[in-house]
Structure formats: C-alpha cells, structure tokens
C-alpha cells in the first residue's frame, strides 16, 4: 500500500492531498495542467519536499515531516517514468537501463538490461542513442529503465502524451497490462480522462492542488461530485437556475434560453450535465415522441467524424454535444447552420450545485 499526504505551497498553487493505492492497483490522477498532479509524484519520489507530509510505501516510511524523516530519492525505490522520458542522451539504450542496476554485479548488468529491453519489445535497439529513437521506442526504454530496479512503487507522468495517436492505443493497452503484472502500487498522471479510465483502476480528479473526487472511472462518470468533474469526464455541462417542478422533476431554466428536466433534486444556481451519447437528434419539425422529457432546439455548429461516430457540436445557445451514428447524421442532412431538436431523458441529466 502506498499512502501519500502532502501540504505545500508551490508558487500560486496550494497543494493539499491525501491518497492511497494498494499493491497492484493504479490510481490515475487526472486534471488540467497546473493542477498539481506532477507535484504529487515528485513528493512521492522525494524530488519535492512538502511543508507537511507523510509518504509510506509498504512498511517503509519515506517521508514524515512530523518525525523529521526524509529518505533521499535514491533510497526510495521509485520507478519514475518522466513526461518526456528523460533518457540520458549520452548513453545508449541499454546503458540507460543498466544505469539503475547498481545492485546487479557489473558483469551481468548488460545482459540484464538486454533482457529488460527484450521484454518491452525493443531488444534490437539496445545500442541506439535516445535521440535516434521514436516516441514509442523511447517510452519502452523508459519503462524498462523504471522497472529495472524492481521498484516498490511506480510513478508515471503522462506516459502516453509524447506518443502519436496511432501508437497511443497499443502502448496504452501494454502499459495497462504492465501495471497489472507489476504487483506494486502505481500512481499515474494524465490530463485526459479517457486515458485515466483506461490505465487506472481508480481515478482521482485533481484540481487546484486538491483531489476533488476519487473512484472508479464509471463511478465518476455516473455520479460526478461537481460540474468540473462532469466536464472533465466528457459530459456537456450547461448552467441555469433550478426549481422543483410540479411533476416531482427538477426544472432547470438554462442561461440563454430553453429548459430541461432532471430526476435529481436541485435548487438555485446549478450545472446540468449530460453525456454526448445520451443525446438524440431530430428534425426541428418532428413531433416529440417517446419517453424523453428534454427537447431543446439547437443550431448545428460543427459535424466531426470520430471513429465510427459523428460528433455534433450545437448551440442551444449554450454549447451542447451529441454523438450519433453516420446513417442518422445523413438522414438528418446535418451541416453547420442546420436546426435540430436535441432530445434526452430526464434520468440521464445530472444536476450539480455550482
């Protein structure tokens, strides 16, 4: 189990976090840039000393400011994968991996480094210099280097950010498998919720130095604790004024016009959130049918293909996003400037206090 508590003032950022992750578990810290995610990793690795804090990994105390304990980074056994991988440019790939193998007898380091590179599928690049490697190859060398010392905890800072979209999916799957097999607690930092959901078995949303909500990705998406979390998990967030309706539903008068219903209670200034895949589109003259309660007239702003789906950006006048299939989009002859009715169920509408 890795337990981290830290309070520190870092420039304009006021960091105050407490989190833990079990062996074999990966806690993905997601949040916007500047939220303090990387600082949390640095506290764990011993590269940043908080004003107050405690870092305990298994039965080792790495930091306890109250008791004056601060183990230097080289004795903390953290496998740290840095954002740009931080491979040493003057060393070959295998030498980068062997750099951490000081407990291995000198004669065996090279063989061991080659083994590790083989394991990550880059054995043939052992003699290459980092700057001749592609992003994906660098990431594998960095991973091999980070696990070479058999770390007690793994720290990964945006491990997929430097990869091009084509390599990212494959690298993500491999990384998820590695994290499962490593059997040590892992902390991963990303600004992308999808990546956090893919790699972390739990996700912590970090904003302005605080972990504002933690849980499985599904829990966060289903019950976001705030508008920020909802927005971050990919939902559309609309603001408005809520009041209990006569029918037991909450009615929210949206800023800029329109009104939606939700099964969730709410009063006063609120944010309502809905996921793009919950929103259906109809022609403006269509007579509302079915059980959905919310019908909002909107103007199409953008139509973008995302994989096998079409992402439709609209103004209601607040921005709203729907994801529909190609055939539906063609049927509706969607194009920027067209008018549509966006429809979704009151049960798919979250109401969050602002």
């Amino acid at each position, binding site marked *: 189990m890795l337990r981290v508590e830290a309070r520190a003032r870092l420039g304009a950022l006021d960091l105050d976090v407490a989190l833990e992750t079990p062996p074999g578990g990966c806690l993905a810290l997601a949040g916007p840039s500047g939220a303090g995610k990387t600082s949390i990793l640095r506290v764990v690795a011993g*590269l940043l000393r908080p004003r107050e804090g405690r870092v305990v990994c298994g039965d080792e105390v790495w930091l306890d400011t109250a008791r004056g304990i601060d183990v230097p980074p*080289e004795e903390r056994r953290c496998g*740290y994968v*840095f954002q740009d991988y*931080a491979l*040493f440019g*003057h060393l070959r790939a295998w030498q980068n991996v062997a*750099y951490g193998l*000081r407990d291995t007898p000198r004669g065996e380091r090279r063989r061991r480094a080659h083994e590790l590179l083989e394991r990550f599928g880059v054995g043939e690049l052992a003699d290459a210099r980092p700057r001749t490697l592609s992003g994906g190859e660098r990431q594998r060398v960095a991973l091999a280097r980070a696990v070479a010392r058999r770390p007690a905890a793994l720290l990964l800072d945006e491990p997929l950010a430097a990869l091009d979209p084509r390599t990212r999916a494959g690298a993500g799957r491999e990384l998820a498998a590695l994290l499962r097999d490593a059997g040590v607690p892992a902390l991963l930092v990303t600004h992308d919720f999808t990546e956090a959901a893919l790699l972390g078995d739990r996700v912590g949303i970090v904003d302005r130095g605080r972990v504002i909500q933690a849980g499985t990705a599904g829990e966060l998406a289903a019950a976001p604790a705030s508008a920020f979390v909802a927005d971050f998990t990919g939902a559309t967030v609309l603001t408005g004024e809520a009041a209990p309706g006569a029918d037991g539903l909450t009615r929210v008068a949206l800023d800029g016009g329109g009104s939606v219903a939700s099964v969730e209670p709410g009063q006063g200034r609120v944010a309502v959130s809905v996921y793009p895949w919950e929103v259906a589109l109809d022609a403006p003259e269509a007579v509302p049918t079915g059980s959905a309660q919310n019908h909002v007239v909107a103007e199409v702003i953008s139509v973008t293909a995302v994989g096998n789906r079409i992402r439709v950006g609209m103004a209601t006048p607040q921005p709203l996003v729907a994801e529909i299939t190609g055939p539906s989009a063609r049927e509706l002859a969607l194009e920027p400037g067209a008018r549509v009715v966006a429809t979704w169920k009151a049960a798919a509408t979250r109401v969050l206090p602002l």
Partner: protein
Amino acid sequence: MSRRWFAAGLVAALSVTLLFLVLPVVAIFVDTGPVDLLSSLGDEGALEALRLSLVCSGIAVALIVVVGTPAAYFLATRRFRGRSVVVTLIELPLVLPPAVAGIGLLAALGPQGLLGGWLEDAGLQLVLTTAGVIVALTFVSAPFYLRQTQAAFESLDPTWIDASRTLGASEARTFLRIAIPGAGSGIAAGLALAWGRALGEFGATLMFAGSFRGITQTVPLAIYERFSTDFTGALALSAVLVAISAALLMAVKLLSGTAWLGGAAR
C-alpha cells in the same frame, strides 16, 4: 527588395568582421617563411618559453577544471541568497585589465601582501617564480571556464538529474555520471576558452612573476622581449603560438564532438 538589401547587409557585416579579425593572423604567417619558423624553433630561449607556456597553462587549466567544475555545478543547481553577487565576483576578473590583475595578485600573495606572511611560513614563494606564473594564469583564465561551464550545467535537462536520483544514484554519482557527460560539449568549450586565454596571458604574468628566461618567461613574454631587437624572431614565435592555440582549440572541439556524434554514428 528591402529583404535582399538586408541579406546583403548581413553578408557585408560578416565579411568585414572576418577580414578584420583574420587579417593580422594571416599577416603573421605570410611574413614568416617556413625557414624562419624552423630556425626560431631551434633557438634555445624560444623552446624554453614554449615548454614553460605549455606546462604552466596545462597545470593552470587542470587546477581550474578540478576546482571549477564542482563550483560551477553548485552555482548552476543551487539557489541561495547572494548567489548573483557570487556570480558577479567570479566574473570580475574578466573585465579587469591584466595589469590590475597583476597588481592585485601582488597585493594579495606578494611578500608584503594579505596572505604573504602566511605563504612565507608555509615556505611558498610565488612572486618571480614558475608557481607564480601558474597562479597568474589560473586567476585570469578561470572565469572563462566557470562562466561557460555554469551555463552548460544550467542548460542541462533538469529531469535528467531527477531521473538519475530516482534510479538510485546519489547526488555525487549523478554529478559524475550524468551532469558532466551531459554538459560535456559546453564544458569542453569552456576548457578551450580558458586554455586559449592562459596561453596568451601577458600582463598579469609580467607584473606578478616577471620575465625570466626558463623560469617565468612564457611565449607571450618572450615575443615581447624579442619585439624590440628581433622582429622576425618575434613574428616566428607568434606564428608558433597561433598554431598551437589553434591546434588546442580544434583538438578540444574535435574530442568533445566525437564523444557525442561519433558514438551516435556507430
């Protein structure tokens, strides 16, 4: 149209600069025939001056590297109160006229100087000795090395240092295995600059150590001594100094270059 004029202006500026800087050097070689060059090398005094210059500047540069490298690393990696004052003080000798440097060294380390008594008790005689030459060269050329090396360490990717620490290396090991090789080309450039400056040092050496053949007379001092009586000899010795300085500069650049590029090419 104005773009073409601007480009032409840049080319003209570079041409004038190059011509002005290279002309005296070319003139030395044009005026010195190969025969003069060889005969000047046959002269006992010239050889002695050459040996003294190489030995003294070599020792000075070695001292600068051994002490200056960790000092520059400290300045590059630590933030502390008065740091900018320290940096300025270290850079001060760069702007001191060599004669002032010589006077300063006399006032500090001469027999009547600040540390004079202490040096005498220790049995160290610097003024008018070969050791004095080394002190003068070190004083004058150290700032060149420190400045360059500090900048090289500062431009090193700080995550390399962090990565090294998380990979189990102490700060000392990180310094030796990551920081120095990582900043290698910048450090080599500083070394070349400092060495070049030491080889050409004149004023401070003359004031502090004097100009005694075989003891303190380095090549620049020997050139000056010949200048009034034997212009051809002075010219020939100048040519030798230019050749040696250029060779040193090239060697250092090539060595640091192969450490980086040669390895990658293999």
